[in-house]
C-alpha cells in the first residue's frame, strides 16, 4: 500500500504545474478561451513538448505512460490551472486508435502525441442526454467507403479540430447497443458544416451537421457495428480524466475560499472566525478528501479487466466529483459573498468549470443510475 506517486510522475506534475502557472495566468487563460480557437495553440504545443500528451499513452503507442495514474496526474494539473487546451480530445481519440485502430490508423497517434493534430470526439447528439448508445447519425456503405448523415452536438473544439472521431449507426436504431460504428473524419471534410460557439466555462464547442459526408473504407475504426465497446472504453478514460481535472479545480477553489475566510473581515473579525462558515469549510475539506479517494479508486481501476468492477469505479468517481464539484463551486461562491459573483475573481471561473464538468460524459444522476445498473448486473453474474 502506497499512496505516493512515483518520482517520475511527481517530476512531471511539478513541471506541468510550473509551466502552466507561468504561461496560463488567468488573464492569458481568458485570452485563450475567448480567442479564435478557444485555446492557446502555443500553450498546447508547450504541453506536448513537456510530455503532457505523451504521458497519456503507453510506449508502444508513442507515449511514455498510459496508466490510470498517469492520466489522473496530468488532468489534475490541468484542473488546478484551469487549462482549456484540447487534452481530453487527444486522450479519448488516441485511446480509440490504440483500442481499435489498424496500423495505418494508429499512425495518426504521432500527430496527436506531438500536439500537431487536434482531435475531438463527435459523439453526443441532440437528445442523447449522456446515453452512450443513443446514436442516430447514419453511415451508409458505398462502393468506396461510407456516407455519413446526421448531427453531432456540443463537440469540444469541433469548429477547429483536425481530426474527428464520429459515432454513427450502420444498422439498427437508437438506442440499440449493436450497430454503432466509429469513423475517423477530417475536420475539413466536404459536407461537414459547423456552428461554433463559446462555452460558459471558457473555450469552444460546435454543433456539427454532416450532410452526405463521404469517407473512405479506411475511415472505419474497429469492427462495423461494434463501436459501443470502444466508446465505453474511451469514455472510461474520459471519466477518469474529468474526475481528476475536477479534483484539481476543487482543490484550488477550496484553498482560495479558505484564504478568503482568513483575510476577509466583517464585524471587525475575519469571517473564518464564524462557526457557521467554519463548519461549511470543514465539510468541503472532508468532501474533497472523499473526491480524491474516488479518483484514486478510478485510476487504479481503469485498466481492470473485470468490466463491471472497472466501470463501477469509474461511474462512482464521476458521480462523486459531479456531486462534490458542484458543492464546492456553490459553497465557494457563497462563502465569498458578492465578490464570488464577479468575473474578476479567478474563483468564479473555477466554479463554472467545476459545474460544467458534471455536464460532460454523464452527470451525477446519470452515473448513479449507471452504478446501480452495473451493481445489478454484478449480482446476476
Amino acid at each position, binding site marked *: 500500500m*502506497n499512496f505516493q506517486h512515483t518520482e517520475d510522475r511527481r517530476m512531471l506534475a511539478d513541471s506541468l504545474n510550473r509551466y502552466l502557472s507561468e504561461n496560463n495566468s488567468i488573464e492569458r487563460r481568458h485570452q485563450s478561451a475567448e480567442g479564435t480557437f478557444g485555446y492557446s495553440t502555443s500553450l498546447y504545443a508547450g504541453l506536448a513538448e513537456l510530455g503532457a500528451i505523451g504521458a497519456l499513452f503507453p510506449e508502444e503507442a508513442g507515449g511514455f505512460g498510459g496508466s490510470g495514474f498517469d492520466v489522473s496526474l496530468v488532468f489534475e494539473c490541468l484542473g488546478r490551472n484551469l487549462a482549456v487546451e484540447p487534452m481530453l480530445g487527444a486522450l479519448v481519440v488516441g485511446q480509440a486508435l490504440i483500442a481499435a485502430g489498424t496500423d495505418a490508423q494508429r499512425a495518426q497517434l504521432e500527430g496527436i502525441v506531438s500536439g500537431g493534430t487536434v482531435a475531438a470526439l463527435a459523439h453526443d447528439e441532440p437528445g442523447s442526454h449522456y446515453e452512450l448508445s443513443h446514436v442516430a447519425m447514419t453511415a451508409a456503405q458505398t462502393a468506396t467507403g461510407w456516407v455519413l448523415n446526421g448531427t453531432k452536438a456540443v463537440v469540444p473544439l469541433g469548429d477547429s479540430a483536425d481530426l474527428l472521431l464520429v459515432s454513427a449507426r450502420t444498422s439498427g436504431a437508437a438506442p440499440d447497443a449493436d450497430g454503432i460504428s466509429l469513423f475517423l473524419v477530417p475536420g475539413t471534410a466536404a459536407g461537414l458544416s459547423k456552428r461554433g460557439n463559446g462555452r460558459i466555462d471558457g473555450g469552444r464547442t460546435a454543433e456539427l451537421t454532416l450532410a452526405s459526408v463521404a469517407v473512405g473504407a479506411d475511415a472505419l475504426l474497429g469492427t462495423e457495428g461494434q463501436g459501443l465497446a470502444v466508446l465505453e472504453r474511451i469514455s472510461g478514460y474520459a471519466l477518469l480524466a474529468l474526475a481528476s481535472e475536477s479534483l484539481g479545480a476543487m482543490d484550488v477553489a477550496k484553498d482560495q475560499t479558505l484564504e478568503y475566510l482568513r483575510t476577509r473581515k466583517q464585524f471587525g473579525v475575519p469571517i473564518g472566525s464564524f462557526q457557521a462558515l467554519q463548519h461549511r*469549510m470543514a465539510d468541503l475539506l472532508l468532501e474533497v478528501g*472523499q473526491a480524491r479517494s474516488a479518483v484514486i479508486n478510478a485510476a487504479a481501476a481503469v485498466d481492470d479487466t473485470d468490466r463491471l468492477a472497472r466501470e463501477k469505479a469509474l461511474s462512482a468517481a464521476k458521480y462523486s466529483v459531479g456531486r462534490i464539484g458542484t458543492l464546492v463551486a456553490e459553497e465557494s461562491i457563497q462563502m465569498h459573498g458578492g465578490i464570488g459573483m464577479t468575473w474578476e475573481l479567478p474563483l468564479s471561473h473555477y466554479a463554472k468549470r467545476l459545474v460544467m464538468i458534471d455536464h460532460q460524459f454523464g452527470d451525477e444522476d446519470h452515473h*448513479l443510475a449507471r452504478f446501480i445498473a452495473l451493481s*445489478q448486473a454484478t449480482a446476476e453474474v
Partner: protein
Amino acid sequence: MDLQFTPQELAFRDEVRAFLKDKLPERIAHKVKAGQRLTKADQEEWHAILNARGWLANHWPKAHGGPGWGAVEKFIFDTECALAGGPRIVPFGVNMLGPVLIKYGNEQQKAYWLPRILSGEDWWCQGYSEPGAGSDLASVKTTAVREGDHYIVNGQKTWTTQGQHANMIFCLVRTDREAKAQSGISFLLVDMNSPGVELRPIRTLDGDREVNEVFFTDVKVPAENLVGEENKGWTYAKFLLTYERTGIAGVGFCVAALAKLKVIAARVLKNGQPLDRDPLFAARMARVEIDLENMKTTNLRVIAAVAGGGVPGAESSMLKIRGTEIRQEILSLIRRAMGPYAIPFVEEAQYEGYAEPPLGEPEAATAAANYFNYRKLSIFGGSNEIQKNIISKMILGL
C-alpha cells in the same frame, strides 16, 4: 501508487481470518450479526479469547503485552473482526486507559493496572461527561480535594457506558477550582465499590440500559490513584481522545452492515419486486455504497500516512465524521427496508434465545432499535460538530 496490501500484510490477514474462523464463538458472532444485545459475559468471553492470543491490547507496545502492530495491522484486524461478526472490544480499559497509563502512569501503576486490564480482573468505565460538561468537557465540576494520602471526591458523572458492569472508573476531576477551565483538572482512578459511589441506570430511547449516571459523595480515593501530575489531567484526556483513531471510521462495521443491507434489499419485496430494484431505494443504497468505497480509500490514505511516520491528528476527525455518517445511513436503510415491521418492538427479541416466530423479516426485531441506538455514533467521542471545530482549528487554521 499501489492500493494493494503487501504479501506480508495479506498473510497477516489470512492469519486473522483463520483465528476468527477457529476461535470466534458462533453463538457470539450470530448475536452481533443479528444486532442483539451482548451481555458482560459475552464480552468477557471474547476478551479472554483475544487475550490468550495476545491480540486484546493491540494498541499497546510489546513491552506491555501488546502485539506490536502497526497501523495497517490494526486496520486489518479491526476490519476482519467486524466482517466476521466479532464484538467491538470494550474500549474503556484496553483502548482508553491503557495507553494513558503507558504514557503518563508511574511504574507501580503500570505494573498493577495493566495486567488487570488484560486479564479482565478490572472492568473499566469512563467518568468524563457531566450534566453540565458534554461537548464542553473542560467545565467538569466534580471535585477532588486532597486530604492526607487521599482525595475526597464529590460530584456527578453521566453517560457512563457499561458502568453497571464496571468495578473501576477513570475520572476527570477538578483539583483546582481557582484555575482556568482546562488547567485545574486531574485524572483519577476510582474504585466503583468505594462507599459513596452510587450508580443509576439511564434508559436510552431504544429501551436499553447501557449508560448510567454515577454519583460521588465524599468518596475516599487513595492519592496513589492519581495518574500523572495533579492539574495536568486535561493533557491526558486529550491524548486519550485522539489516541490512534485510525480505526475510528469503523470501515469494517460499515462494510458488514452494507452487506447485510444488500441481502435484505434483495429479499424484501415491494410491488412484487425486490427492494433493490426500487429506483429510490436503489439510489439511496448506491449513494452510501459509493461514499463507503471512497471512505475505505480515505481511511487507507490516513493509515499509510501514519505508517510512514505521520500522526493521525485532526484527520481522525474527518474519519470519525464520515465513518459515523455512513454507518448511520446504512442502519437507517435497514430500518426503512423493514417497512411497517420496523414498528413492533419486543424487548426479549433484543436478546439471545428469543424463540417466537419473527414479526416480518427476521432483521425487523432489532432494526429500529439499532437505528435509534446508533444515533449515539455522531454524538459520543466528541460530537461531529466538535470534530468540525477541531478540523477548523487544527487543519484549516481558522
